[in-house]
């Protein structure tokens, strides 16, 4: 702040403007993405993943949609076949990382404090503690939030957004930005559909279509008797695609282009 004229006011006044406006005027036209620095760090993270042959998946949803529960069920289903690790993003606590560790795979907890989303630099810091050499599949569980995480590339290859059937089926219409960024929508807790009359999966699919999206939507239930077959199939196809990346199209959706 300027220490001499007291110009640190909510709005620039004519007086302090005049005091500063002494020299010639200059205008510079630029066309520059405001999040370019984050995007560069994200590209750097992606390079790390690619060099180590890791498929990185950013998992997003509102709080309580079942991200950690889905990851627990996924790890139990796949850990004999794949080396899995998880980066957990939460405002506070190591609880989710502890749940993942209890499944027998490495987890790093990023506690963001008051922050509402992960960004590429937070993930980059976490990568320093994660031996990528021994990993095939890395999940980045973002902070539970359907707004803020959408704008920040972390370096992931694919975005997955969960929509639990305990939420409204019109969420894609309410949060178009995050659903547009998704490569897959997972309808979670579908074992509850039988007792929840309000949620209509067809309406959720229509809301997605109204965003001009061909994004696939699959059903999962991760608790009691897990039913995650379609999700596991999608993951295996994504891994297969990463290993033979000649085709630019995955699951009808163009995969994240490598920087």
């Amino acid at each position, binding site marked *: 702040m300027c220490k001499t004229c007291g110009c640190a006011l909510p709005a620039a006044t004519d007086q302090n403007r005049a005091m500063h406006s*002494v020299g010639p005027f200059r205008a510079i036209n630029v066309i520059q993405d405001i999040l*370019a620095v984050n995007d560069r760090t994200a590209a750097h993270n992606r390079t790390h993943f690619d060099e180590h042959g890791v498929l990185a998946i950013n998992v997003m949803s509102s709080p309580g949609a079942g991200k950690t529960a889905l990851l627990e069920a996924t790890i139990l289903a796949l850990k004999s076949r794949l080396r899995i690790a998880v980066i957990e993003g939460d405002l506070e606590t190591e609880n989710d990382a502890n749940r993942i560790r209890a499944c027998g795979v490495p987890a790093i907890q990023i506690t963001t*404090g008051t922050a509402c989303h992960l960004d590429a630099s937070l993930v980059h810091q976490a990568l320093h503690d994660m031996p990528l050499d021994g990993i095939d599949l890395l999940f980045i569980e973002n902070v539970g939030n359907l707004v803020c995480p959408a704008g920040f590339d972390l370096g992931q290859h694919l975005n997955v957004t969960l929509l639990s059937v305990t939420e409204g089926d019109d969420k894609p219409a309410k949060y178009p930005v995050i659903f547009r960024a998704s490569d897959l929508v997972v309808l979670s807790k579908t074992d509850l559909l039988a007792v929840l009359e309000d949620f209509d999966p067809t309406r959720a699919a229509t809301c997605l279509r109204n965003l001009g999206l061909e994004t696939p939507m699959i059903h999962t239930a991760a608790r009691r008797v897990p039913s995650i077959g379609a999700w596991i199939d999608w993951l295996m196809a994504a891994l297969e695609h990463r290993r033979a990346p000649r085709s630019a199209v995955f699951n009808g959706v163009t995969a994240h282009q490598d920087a």
Partner: protein
Amino acid sequence: MRAAKRGRVVHELSVCQALLSQVGEIARAQGAAAVEQITIELGPLCGTEPRLLWNAFSAMRCGVAANAELRIEHCPVRIQCLQCEARTETRPNRLVCGRCGGWRTRVIAGDELRLLKVEMRMPLASSQNAVAASSEEQCNYV
């Protein structure tokens, strides 16, 4: 202000921090005395709320941009139909063709979050040293 200085409470603060940092780099490269106006373009599909970004900017502007004003150009959402090729304007959660109703469309505008223009005052030749000193004042973002 502890939380605001961390820059991540709402993501608009992170965006504002990135914006001020870019503007600071440009102003430094130009040797500017003060940034007067910053123009950005923002589309409804970029995920940043213009009002919140403007509020964040009012609280966070500092250093060479301490008196800068933020001008936000709002971009409408425009899509092109992949079937009939019509280009139509629409709202953020209805990205279907305005002519044929087809849902296979491509967003051609409306997801921008870009810095467009930085307007600044250059120092008078006689006050160059004073300006150089003042632009080195403590600032967290610029």
